[in-house]
């Protein structure tokens, strides 16, 4: 699945442009606890989260996460968005709740980072 498809499925808004909408997203994970994101062997390409501070961007960078989707219409501050831009990490924001966002993507075939769906 490519990032533009994720954007459509989540009816999301892109928080900085021009992010690469052709970016390939093969696996996703959802977490609000950044240490959980860091505590895994498999990489997830997309992080779905309700947390919007700059540590989310840093965590994504460190853990090789390609893109982040914020749920419940949340948006990080300008500084966090600038950090994401400088690291080339596209940011999406969707009005959907976390469970709904995950379910929509799973129903469209996006797998989880542990490979169980």
């Amino acid at each position: 699945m490519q990032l533009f498809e994720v954007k459509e499925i989540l009816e999301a808004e892109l928080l900085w442009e021009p992010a690469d909408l052709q970016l390939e997203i093969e696996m996703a994970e959802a977490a609000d606890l950044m240490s959980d994101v860091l505590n895994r062997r498999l990489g997830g390409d997309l992080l779905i989260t309700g947390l919007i501070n700059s540590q989310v961007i840093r965590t994504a960078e460190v853990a090789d996460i390609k893109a982040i989707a914020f749920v419940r219409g949340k948006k990080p501050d300008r500084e966090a968005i600038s950090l994401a831009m400088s690291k080339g990490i596209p940011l999406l924001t969707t009005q959907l709740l976390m469970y709904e966002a995950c379910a929509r993507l799973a129903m469209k075939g996006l797998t989880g980072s542990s490979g169980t769906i």
Partner: protein
Amino acid sequence: MEKKELMWDYEIEGKDFRNAGRVSSKVKDILKELGFDPDFVRRVAIASYEAEMNVVCHADKGTLHFAILPQALQIVVKDRGPGIPDIELAMQEGYSTAPPEIREMGFGAGMGLSNMKKNADELHIVSTVGQGTVVEMVMRSPRSRQGSA
């Protein structure tokens, strides 16, 4: 051929949440630039980031020393802070003394030390209550892509 040892030293400010992670980002950039295996780079970056966050969250200030040795990579994080009274207890997943502001940032759930242990080949912790903590991590490196002798 002359053997060159590569090392870097960075300072970490306690409670400076805006810049937390900056040092580990630099460590990652250096390793990427030197052509190390991406999975290895991620392991190092994660371990470094957790150690850096511990300094930011708990200590007054600290340093991160990072060295590429012939057979391995070494990270030493020293801080001036409260120290860890019971290291064995602190190593248990879920044990945390982090205040709410740190939990709000998605950390402080007692995963930091175990994440470091998981990603490092060796983890040594020496701590003196009321003075500070020294965390040393060693990661045995796969050869860099560019290859050295």
